[in-house]
């Protein structure tokens, strides 16, 4: 089972790199999004530093949602999902591996880059590490909640928009606590409570979403 998991992970990452949707593209996306913000909001440092956590979290949400509709659809179109259903390895593990790969090229680079992007958005130095930590812990929740939407819309020709409509309401708690971590840290207070809640959400999503997504794939296709 671990072997299958690793094999799928490697396959996904290789695929992402070869179709030009690897880590570099994710990083470019964030850079551009962050650079556009000061033009839209005006270069006021104080305003930017207040909005920065929200901007970075929205960037994470967008980056996660943008690629998600292809996460399972590409495999649906060339029949790989059918093989996954027949595989001896539980479907839950397979979709878990796929979501993990998706996170590795979207959520992880954002979390690692957050301190750099944070400087551009004038985040308080004290909040820099908490920001990176919150993104590191919270972005898996976004990806895995999104995985459910991806599985539900897998057979739809144009599922991207519907996927966002389905998934975004469910990501609200993640955003609330993710932004709360940075806000508390920037004001010099302890951010243990929102960080624990964020961790809890992520852990629940990691467990529940592969089960729900696998059920969706089994039940809603043909």
């Amino acid at each position, binding site marked *: 089972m671990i072997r299958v998991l690793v094999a799928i992970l490697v396959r996904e990452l290789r695929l992402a790199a070869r179709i030009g949707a690897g880590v570099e593209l994710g990083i470019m996306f964030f850079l551009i999004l962050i650079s556009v913000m000061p033009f839209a909001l005006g270069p006021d440092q104080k305003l930017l530093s207040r909005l920065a956590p929200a901007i970075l979290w929205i960037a994470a949400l967008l980056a996660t949602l943008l690629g998600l509709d292809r996460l399972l659809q590409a495999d649906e179109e060339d029949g790989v999902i059918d093989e996954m259903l027949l595989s001896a390895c539980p479907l839950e593990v397979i979709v878990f591996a796929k979501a993990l790969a998706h996170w590795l090229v979207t959520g992880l680079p954002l979390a690692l880059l957050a301190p750099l992007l944070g400087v551009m958005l004038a985040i308080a130095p004290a909040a820099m590490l908490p920001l990176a930590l919150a993104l590191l812990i919270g972005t898996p929740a976004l990806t895995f909640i999104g995985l*459910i939407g991806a599985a*539900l*819309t897998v057979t739809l020709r144009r599922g991207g928009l519907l996927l966002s409509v389905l998934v975004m*309401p*469910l990501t609200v708690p993640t955003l609330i606590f993710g932004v709360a971590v940075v806000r508390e840290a920037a004001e010099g207070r302890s951010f243990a409570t929102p960080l624990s809640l964020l961790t809890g959400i992520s852990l629940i999503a990691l467990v529940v979403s592969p089960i729900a997504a696998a059920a969706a794939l089994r*039940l809603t296709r043909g």
Partner: protein
Amino acid sequence: MNEQPAPRSDGLAAAFWSLANPGRFMQYSAAMLPWLAAITAALMAYGLYKGIFVAPADYQQGESMRIMYIHVPAAWMAMGVYSMMTLSALGTLVWRHPLADVSQKAAAPIGATFTALCLMTGSLWGKPTWGTWWEWDARMTSVLVLLLIYFGIIALWRAIDEPLRAARAVAIMTLVGAVNLPIIKFSVDWWNTLHQPASVFRRGGPTIHPAMLEPLLVMGLAFALLFGCLQIVRMQAEIINRRADRLALRQATGEA
């Protein structure tokens, strides 16, 4: 997921499964509907009369608090309908009850309407009492999220053509969205917010005056029955729709 039919020994389960026959459901529900509608209308008239003319005005909020008799029952139904849909989702996925997905599909727009009604009356009530139409407070935000989940579910129904597949997809989405229900219920206790904490269903009994409580409960019952009526009508329409689809399909494929 096992496909064995549920045991049909005791009375309740037997009734539950005898209704699995859409024909029998149509028969029973058609007989029930006029009575249900009459009781609903009577209760609603009585509740509104009591609420608007008989119940005392609030000593602080004055007459504006009478909107409570719409707002609170709508809020109860917003969550009640979603709970019912969650049960129906289990009915679709676990028990494979043939009417479960019909009930789920029928309920979603009704639930969304109750939720929208709750938000709108809340907004109208908020302006004179809190001085604001809208505040991003925990209770309001979580009810808004509930409305968005309803919209997502309705959109998912429309996106998938085949009823059975749509039903299963929606059932999974409904179960996932059900995490929001406890968040709404306890949001006023967990976060110290603008919205007042529970005053009817709370430990230690209601804090609301009996003269106000009575019309409120009557209205709650009336709203629940109203949902029952609308649900029956919509389920009947859905069943008839599906029959028509099947007939059209049969005609198109040339079967007798």
